[in-house]
């Protein structure tokens, strides 16, 4: 009961602010609503007892990436951007893609209704005490079974970072 209330609260906030994010013309307002969406999604993760994903979402996306977004937007002259025509010519393509995605999600939900332990709308959450510690489980998988992909991904990120530094550096 409480789980459902929390889920629908966060889901509602996420969808509402996602809609507002797309429709606002002021970039800072959009950023604020994107932050709200991300926080609400983090709340859903927490409600599903995925604590590590929850905090990773908050630290990385909200506390890291969005701060830099806002930082950049603040330096742009917004009043100019407000009077320009927005790049929204692909309206119909976007609508088609959205519909296709929605259909996909719908089919997935519909076909999962018969899987035992899964509900039609939301999976039955396992009580907190019954789950293995989330952080430890994730670390165990990452540094054991998936060590190589994990290392490759980190090297890739490092290369990207070094590349960004090299490109941003002044040529002397």
């Amino acid at each position: 009961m409480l789980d459902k209330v929390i889920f629908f609260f966060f889901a509602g906030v996420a969808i509402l602010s996602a809609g507002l994010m797309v429709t606002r013309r002021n970039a800072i307002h959009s950023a604020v609503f994107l932050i709200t969406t991300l926080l609400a999604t983090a709340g859903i993760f927490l409600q599903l007892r995925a604590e590590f994903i929850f905090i990773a979402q908050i630290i990385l996306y909200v506390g890291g990436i969005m701060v830099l977004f806002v930082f950049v937007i603040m330096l742009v002259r917004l009043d100019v951007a407000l009077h320009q025509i927005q790049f929204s010519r692909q309206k119909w393509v976007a609508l088609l893609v959205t519909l296709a995605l929605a259909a996909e999600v719908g089919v997935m939900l519909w076909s999962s209704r018969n899987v035992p332990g899964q509900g039609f709308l939301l999976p039955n959450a396992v009580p907190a005490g019954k789950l293995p510690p989330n952080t430890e489980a994730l670390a165990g998988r990452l540094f054991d079974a998936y060590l190589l992909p994990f290392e490759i991904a980190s090297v890739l990120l490092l290369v990207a970072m070094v590349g960004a530094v090299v490109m941003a550096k002044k040529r002397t």
Partner: protein
Amino acid sequence: MNPTLHAVLVFLETWWVELVSGVVIVAVVPLVAGYIVLVERKLMADMQARLGPMRVGPHGLLQPIADAVKLLIKEDIIPDNADKMVFWMAPVVSMTAALTSMGAIAFGPAFQVARDINVGLLFVIGVSSLGIFGIVLGGWASNSHYSIMGALRSTAQLVSYETAAGLALISGLLLAGTLKIRAIVDAQQHFGVWFVFLAPVAFFIYVVASIAETNRAPFDLPEAESELVAGYMTEYSGFRWALYFLGEYANMIVVGAVATTLFLGGWLRPFPNVRWMNWLDALPALFTAAVGAYCVYRAGKQPVRVQTWFMWGVALACFVVALILAVPLLVAPLKFLVPGLHGAFWFLLKISAYIYLFMWLRFTLPRYRFDQLMHLGWYILIPLAIVNVLAVGVAMILEMEYGWNRWLAMLLTTVITLATALFLLRLNDKRAAAASSAAPPPEEPSTEDSYAG
């Protein structure tokens, strides 16, 4: 019974401790923040051979209340061209982030809102770092140059120093082997030593980085009075300004609590496992009683009758607290209260000591320049923190796999890290010397730090 009412009652029955603790945090933190300000003003006055606030209450003890009332009834000004929605929201974000992150902190083994969160420490630092949105959005929404300069500086500063702080915390977390707040303190009890003695360099980095994160002197560039009026809160007044202020002081409590939990042994008393040190258990009660006795001594010297009475009241409050702390020690059936009450006392004492250290530094050190701040962060603290994490990891492997003595391994870590620090400082000096000899001394801030104000 009505099913809805029944559900509400079940909910309250399950969660009342958490709800009450949450309400207590929200209610008490503003008051505590006010008194931290009073202590800060008195200390600053003392160091500058002044008296500080003396008028409202004996020795200015009621000054925070007067300030709060003043701020509440002040006019709330919103600039004409401000972005109203964001302007309203920003201070609230700042304070909410700080107060929310307190939910996971354990003020003693008995007082914690979010009990079994698996990522406790990450939750505290992650959520408290969201407070930066309040600063950035407030600075932007004010539509003023000083505000946006302060906001930009603040963002750059927080992003840089959060990395160093996070890496320093990782060194401590490696030792603890867990992210749960209680388990971290239990690990220190198990080790029999506070982690500050095993990883002193990590603690030092965390102290420096946490000063920068809370925007306090010598790193208070986002609100440098002599350059930016008041930085991001230039356009704020009245209660909204007070919210920013509260957020800042709540943040100080948060970083103090994190440092205490991870490095200073949390709610453990000094030497928790040494039996002949058990007399330390009496210290909390004796300490509060001594404060009460001093208040009685001062009461007779107050110039006004009302202030004498007030001093008596403070003394009475101290004696009551001392009694509460002492009775469970002496009466056997109440013994189960000891860990909770005394834990809270030691925890708060350690946080106070940490904040006291912040104040010392504020009154002692001059403010850094912006490029100095960035150099310190990126060229010295972050590499040092990375080296420290690696060294602590190696030391733990040496201890666990090769049977080295823990103290020897940790000493090696510290020596290696300090050597690296010396090397980095030399490198930095050389770079600075090369820069100053190659280029003529810049008359104005170079293009490199365009947001330097």
